């Protein structure tokens, strides 16, 4: 495996912020990894994803993605980087209301000057929502909107898929469907960074869990995959019959 993302001593202090949103974070992500980022509200998870996505710049430290130091890119270069390399999925979908599902999916491709309606339909099909392609977001369920957003994130074949609480606004069932999608994508080699509050979901799918507290990565747990015998995982205790 080769390194895809490197944060070196990254600090982010927002304007007016008293303490840093990120305080000296150093972490690397390998190509093909499925990593979950967990931590309390306000700990800096979204800030971390935004910096990796090139949506914002660090106050100090380096963000290197696919060998490119993002600090070396100007605004236009950064926009191109985002368009070509990053797919971003948000908690609240962020679909444009006056465009149909299909048109929403096509936005990143059009920014690139490519017309790929066939691929967009194919993606919607893979995500199981081909029939809603011509509907407007207001007429879609939350789970459908999120799948449209995932299709949009994937349309340019991003090197990196970043998902910030993608199931946070969904009911359990739609949330699980969205997670299953991410798992399928990972199975096909997609590198994924997922922010989630749900430890059950995180550990079900991601083999690595980063814990962020107060702008620092306090733990980097690599979980073991091989299945264990039931008796090694759970022990139901029985007491002897009372006398």
């Amino acid at each position, binding site marked *: 495996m080769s390194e895809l993302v490197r944060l070196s001593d990254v600090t982010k202090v927002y304007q007016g912020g008293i303490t840093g949103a990120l305080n000296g974070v150093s972490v690397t992500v390998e190509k093909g990894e499925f990593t979950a980022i967990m931590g309390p509200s306000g700990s800096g998870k979204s800030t971390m994803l935004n910096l990796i996505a090139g949506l914002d710049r660090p106050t100090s430290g380096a963000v290197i993605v696919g060998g490119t130091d993002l600090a070396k890119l100007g605004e236009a270069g950064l926009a191109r980087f985002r368009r070509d390399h990053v797919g971003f999925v948000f908690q609240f979908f962020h679909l444009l209301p006056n465009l149909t599902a299909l048109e929403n999916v096509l936005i990143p491709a059009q920014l690139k000057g490519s017309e790929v309606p066939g691929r967009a339909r194919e993606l919607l099909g893979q995500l199981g929502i081909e029939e809603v392609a011509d509907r407007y977001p207001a007429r879609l369920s939350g789970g459908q909107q999120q799948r449209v957003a995932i299709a949009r994130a994937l349309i340019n074949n991003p090197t990196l898929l970043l998902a910030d609480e993608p199931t946070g606004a969904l009911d359990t069932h739609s949330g699980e469907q969205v997670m299953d999608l991410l798992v399928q994508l990972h199975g096909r080699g997609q590198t994924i960074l997922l922010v989630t509050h749900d430890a059950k979901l995180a550990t079900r799918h991601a083999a690595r869990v980063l814990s962020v*507290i107060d702008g620092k990565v306090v733990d980097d747990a690599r979980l*073991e995959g091989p299945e264990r015998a039931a*008796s090694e995982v759970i022990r139901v205790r029985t007491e*002897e*019959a009372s006398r």
Partner: protein
Amino acid sequence: MSLKYGVLGLLKGEPLHGYEVKSRFEAMLGGTWEVNIGQIYTTLQRLERDGLVRPAGPRGDRGKLLYELSPQGQKALDQWLGEPDSGPQQLHEDIYVKLLLATRVANGDLQGMLARQKRTYLQRLRDLNRLEERARRDGRLDLARLVRGALLHAEADLKWMDELSSERFGAEGARTE
């Protein structure tokens, strides 16, 4: 959980030999516990002494004895099934006591302890997730439900670690005394 009522529950379906009780019990728990055959026989003998089970016919070949539920056993089982679980909550794990000690022992490395424990819980969640998937795949809905319960418990334990490591509990706890 009580072996006594587990045995009564299994005998409700049909009369069984001791070793059948053992293998059905283990199958029911999906291999999450191995029951000692001696424990089964002791339990059956006690249940017979208390009139809750009785031999169904004479000893068969190799001295095997078939047991069935008596009417009193049936009553006891129904009553047990109808009662909610009460009594104090059982905490079996060492971490509950370690935490208390860590706040008292001067060199107790509370944060390190919490971080290591948290990792263990994350791994446990992953293992339980796998087990649940496997149970569902095998059509073992009953076992999947059991695992689901364990998952939610492990999640609560993990949340507890998070709470302890982010709040002032450590400092406060150390000051109390």
